[in-house]
């Protein structure tokens, strides 16, 4: 069983929902990333999605585009991101880490070399935004062989046939993108999400995390109620942008954002 499955199984047994924050590695500076990851865990994170910065983040809105630019200004590379996870693991052997990014940095490193480095660092899952399962036949087995979960996206436009196909390739969880749009865009329609996630649940047993549009305790609770976990991204990254110059204040601000979401999610315990 992978570390992600372990955590999600435990939560399920307790009737609790996963809180999955996203930050971009290297933002605002690579020296701060590991500490920010620990901060997220202390504030209630169950799993961390760690963004690998890319020069052309086509599926991201301005907030995460700027985070990528800040991280790349300090030369944050895929190799370095793996190094950050390795450092994080020295103090935290339990919290699963999912790398989220685009395919090209992996291609440049070579799939096998990347899989080795990621596994050695203690990475648990890989979410590659521009890699649908149809193109993943080369790299997915390399992840599986190293007990890392390939995390795939589902979208409002995904047909039932594709939900079936994707969940056959997925392990850990599937990431349901709640809105048509880039990260940080439009407000979420909770009723619509509830309908869609119920449909996914009727097709697959793979847990469903929901991301895009979750900004506060209220939206987290509403979405947590109908899914297995919530993924919180742009609002955290925006907080990082606004507190770049003061590391202590930044940690406090992230904690203040995340803790109420944790409480709200745990208030749902059935």
């Amino acid at each position, binding site marked *: 069983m992978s570390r992600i499955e372990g955590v999600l199984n435990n939560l399920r047994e307790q009737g609790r929902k996963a809180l999955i924050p996203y930050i971009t590695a290297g933002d605002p500076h690579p020296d701060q990333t590991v500490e920010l990851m620990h901060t997220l865990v202390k504030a209630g994170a169950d799993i961390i999605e760690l963004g690998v910065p*890319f*020069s*052309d*983040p*086509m*599926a*991201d*809105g*301005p907030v995460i*585009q700027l985070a990528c630019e800040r991280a*790349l200004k300090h030369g944050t*590379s*895929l*190799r370095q991101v793996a190094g950050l996870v390795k450092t994080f693991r020295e103090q935290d052997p339990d919290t699963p880490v999912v790398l989220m990014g*685009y*395919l*090209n*940095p*992996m*291609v*440049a*490193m070579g799939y096998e070399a990347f899989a080795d480095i990621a596994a050695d660092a203690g990475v648990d899952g890989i979410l590659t*935004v*521009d*890699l*649908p399962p*149809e*193109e993943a036949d080369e790299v997915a087995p390399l992840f599986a062989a190293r007990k890392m979960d390939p995390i*795939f*996206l*589902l*979208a*409002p*436009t*995904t*047909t039932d046939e*594709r939900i079936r196909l*994707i969940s056959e390739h997925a392990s850990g969880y599937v990431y349901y*993108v709640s809105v*048509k*749009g*880039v990260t940080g*865009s*439009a407000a979420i329609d909770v009723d619509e999400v509830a309908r869609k996630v119920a449909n996914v649940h009727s097709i697959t047993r793979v847990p469903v995390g929901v991301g895009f549009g979750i900004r506060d305790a209220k939206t987290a609770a509403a979405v947590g109620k109908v899914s297995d976990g919530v993924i919180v991204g742009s609002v955290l990254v925006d907080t990082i942008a606004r507190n770049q110059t003061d590391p202590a204040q930044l940690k406090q601000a992230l904690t203040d954002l995340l803790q109420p979401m944790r409480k709200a999610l745990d208030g749902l315990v059935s």
Partner: protein
Amino acid sequence: MSIKLTEEMLGQLPDARGHFGDYGGRFVSETLMDSLMTLEREYLRLKKDPEFQAAFDKDLAHYVGRPSPLYFAERLTRETGGAQIWLKREDLNHTGAHKVNNTIGQALLASFLGKKRIIAETGAGQHGVATATVCARLGLECHVFMGAEDVRRQSLNVYRMKLLGAQVHSVQSGTRTLKDAMNDAMRDWVANVDDTFYIIGTVAGPHPYPLLVRDFQSVIGRETREQSLKQAGKLPDALVACVGGGSNAIGMFYPFLTDESVQLYGVEAGGLGIETGQHAAPLAAGRPGVLHGNRTYLMEDENGQIAGTHSVSAGLDYPGVGPEHSWLKDIGRANYVSVTDEEALNAFRRLTRVEGIMPALETAHAVAYAIKLAAEMEPDQMVVINISGRGDKDIHTIAQLDGIEA
């Protein structure tokens, strides 16, 4: 060495997943997958639909003004002193470049699919103008994404698009050129995927775009083949075309791929020189990677971050290239070369003075290489240059280089 291509082999490319050998494919976020699969299905159906093809041919004849002439450049040939130089005059198309062949085709597709909102990316502005033009004609809402740097150097085309009723979005992210315009167009598409058709301007992007853009542009090569046989009594010995994303080049090359005697030359932007790193020549100096939905040769750093490019010509200033070109390079069927900004500018002046034909700066790259090539060939041989567009849009750039306020 080069393998012999057959019609049968070509008929199987791209394969069902949109791959040309190791290249191409569909590397996009999940939100777009359903739309791309629908587009593929509908296109493959319409490709065989006589009604669709008739509508396309009719527009090419009566709206674009095809066939475009194949012109023997007698004086340039004499002065060069080698092979005969012929020009395929895509610059004479309505809107002044080859781009319109593709926008006509894709706008027809959009109509058949019932989409009312059109988006496009543009570099030099030629594709933006061609898209705005067909949208004006069909009464479609049109949004063009253009890098802020290109908005500056192609201001005439920006104004043309506005006159045609398009909304031009100046893109401020990244390097503010064509690749960033394409990023923002993709972002818009994800957000508006239900009612929006994305008219991609070159043979890049996810499957089925490289396929359908190539099909729409292949009219260039088909005409050239027929015209060569009729006017010169033989097939050309060499074809030369500039390569940005590669649509005018593939359109010219494709109908000749099985003609082994015809040498193919794609000319990339050498910028300040390949050795300086300041260029836009992924086939000459890049390596395979994934960008904008397909696997292809790219310009990138050692960590897989896309590299900034440089070219005097906005339409060639792109770090990637269509996947079919990557395949043609690897199998050795086409040769990919580059010329510098300076060589292209000289060729612009040369063609203007010697033939009275002012090429686009993109096209001038092909002209520069073809002149070098022809000089080394025999007088009974024949080189055809794809004159992909006219140079009016670049007069401002040339004037500035000449120190003239235009």
